[in-house]
């Protein structure tokens, strides 16, 4: 039945690992700004720059409608 000691140790160690990860992430300031990363994530990577003609299209599509 000594397996239970092993199990207990493992479970406690895993718990502590997660706890340390939590403290580390808080200390790093990961929770200081919870909004900006959610927006930043959605930006397209611009490894390829759109060509002049394509770019025109993008911008004109977003032209505000006149009123």
């Amino acid at each position: 039945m000594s397996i239970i000691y092993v199990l207990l140790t493992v479970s406690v160690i895993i718990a502590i690992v997660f706890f340390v990860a939590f403290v580390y992430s808080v200390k790093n300031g990961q929770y200081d700004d919870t909004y900006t990363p959610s927006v930043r994530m959605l930006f397209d990577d611009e490894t390829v720059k759109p060509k002049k003609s394509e770019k025109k299209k993008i911008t004109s599509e977003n032209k505000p409608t006149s009123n």
Partner: protein
Amino acid sequence: MENCFHCGEECRDTTIIHEEKHFCCMGCKTVYDILNENDLTYYYALQSTPGQTPKTFEHSFDFLDNQDIVEQLIEFNEQETQIVSLIIPKIHCSSCIWILENLDKLHPGVKVGMVNFPKKSVRITYDASQLSLKELVLLLSKIGYEPNISLEDFNKKEKKIDRSLIYKLGVAGFAFGNIMFLSFPEYFEVDEFWLDKFKIIFRWLMFAFSLPVVFYSGRDYFTSAYKGLRSGILNINVPIAIGILVLFLRSTLEIIMDWGTGFFDSLAGLVFFLLVGKFFQQKTYSFLSFERDYKSYFPIAVTQLVTNDTATTSEKQTQVYALKPGDRILIRNQELIPTDGILIDGNALIDYSFVTGEAEPVHKTKGDKIFAGGKQQAGIIEMEITKAVEQSYLTQLWNNEIFSKNKSTSFNTLTDQISRRFTIAILSIAVVASLVWVFIDSAIAFNVFTAVLIVACPCAIALAAPFTLGNMLRIFGKFKLYLKDTTTIEQMAQIDMVVFDKTGTLTKNTKDLITYQGITLSENEQKVLTSTLRTSNHPLSRALYNLLKDNDIYTLDDFSEEAGKGITGTHNTTTVKIGSHSFVENKKQLDKNVKDTQVHISTNNEYKGCYIFNNTYRDGMQQLFAQLDKTVDLMILSGDNDGEQAYLKTQLPASAQLKFNQKPKDKLEVIKSLQEKGHKVMMVGDGLNDAGALAQSDVGISVSEDVNVFSPACDGIIDASKLNQLAHYLSLSRKSIGIIKQAFIFSLCYNLIGLGFAVTGHLAPVVAAILMPLSSISIVVFTTIATHILSKQTNA
């Protein structure tokens, strides 16, 4: 009409069509060009019309030439890497984030940009050898993101963010989960051999987990209870501290003596829920600051005039703290006067509306004293300083002791009031019950005594207020009333007197109600008038020009401006004089009682009439007064003259009091005397002149047309468009106190049930483990639902 492709404003008379797009002004077009050239038009794809019209005051960042100032501003400075954090109030959408994080495409000197959207700040890493801070700031200004650098930023210490509550919460939650898990077998009291064999290690593990909960997470409750007891107050933390302590000691005793498993799970759960409540009521608006003083309104540096040995005068950027009496400084148009002094040269027209409440700009001539806080409105002036910045007439207001007092600590909250009676009641029940048991079965007496203290631990009571008020704080935030903390809501509920400032609070910041009185002007006269106005830079001329700009414009034959008096313009045979009454006409004496802002007109020396400028009152003020009058007393406390007394009287209920010509210090004293009469006073103001009154009042609310710009230290900031809802918000705060009271009754029921178990000596750990979280969670659910119903009713 087209809208500007860049900023979305309506293009008026000066539409610029460029690359098939419409722009409202050259500024917007320039920004578009800059972005277009650098392949950054994705900016416009992310969000339509995200742009900001750039404002450029050529010299406004000259102070960044001063290396000492730059060093104070930057966070990190090492060879080719400099880091600076800048507050940019204009950050408002995802395009803003994108462009500010892609600044490196605009200038190779920029390495990394990192936006913190809630704080509206950007942290830029750059290389000072390629790009100085001034160039960086100008680059940002050029694309419409002008950073806000004020005196407050100077010598700013690296602010330590207090994260201890999150850590404590983390520890408690971590321990709570693990202890629950470890005590699970014993909940069912399974009589199995192997459970019996291992229960010792399970129990001691639980004990180990509970140690950080008691001594780290729960530490604040002990210190607060101790402090309270020492000053003779039985605050809510006293019964909580007793509860935690008794839980811990009895559980430890139980496992040592092998009586049972103890209440470690309830202990960890209790601390965890309490901390959750504490965490929840801390709603912070990171883009707002409730602690501002004059420092965030003042510039960091001014242009000093230095005369050297050879009698040549040169300009130098000097940090304002370094200014000494006798120094000469230069104030440009739209710049702020940092300290008291004497006008040496130039033509001063100073807008004091923010510091004194006077609606009208004041004209000063050579030799006049000028006071700190005013904004110069016309041209360059030169002044000699008579007092250092900290000793100026305005900044001395902050020496008043009221600014060093912490309001919320002296306030006796509802929870604390209840907890006094509660603690006494619990202690007496515990003593009586254990005394009774001493005679029946003395072995159980100790058990009963501790069980009563455990079960009576006012977890639910302690959670009722944080959750109700925390919810309300968020609801008020949605209604654009941003409050500093939850205590403010409790204080709002007690308000019986509301005091309003006039200028900027009841009235809009702009004078846009212009009426003409006198002989109607002919078309020709109007055209000359318009053309003359166009040439002048005086704020009143500009306002009037905006009104008349539909008229055609002549090229004037002659134009002259007499500082502080008026302007003259001539076209063919028509000469128009615009300005003060004495400038335009010297025959008739002006009625001295007129206190409105007036601009008089004469053509060819014949008096025609005058334009009267009035402050427009915000919409719905009369209804607001009527609603407020039902529950509270009203007062108007204005720094302005009594020119609008008659009008205000028609708006206000008869019982309201009006006071005019109040200096900042007077306002503070008036509030104080009202409080001495027993009133709970709410002050609603906007400017620096209200700062004292806002600090003195029980609840100081600052009105702001743009919550991102400066507002003085206060307990809450209300969006100007929502000011007419104030009566509503007051009643909301009263209703939320009602919810807390209901929650108290609710949680008392749980305590009574628990007491039933405890007094009869039947409190098993599993009962405590169920009862305690159940009561806490049901209180949270109850308050959440109740506050949401309340907010729904408000919406309807």
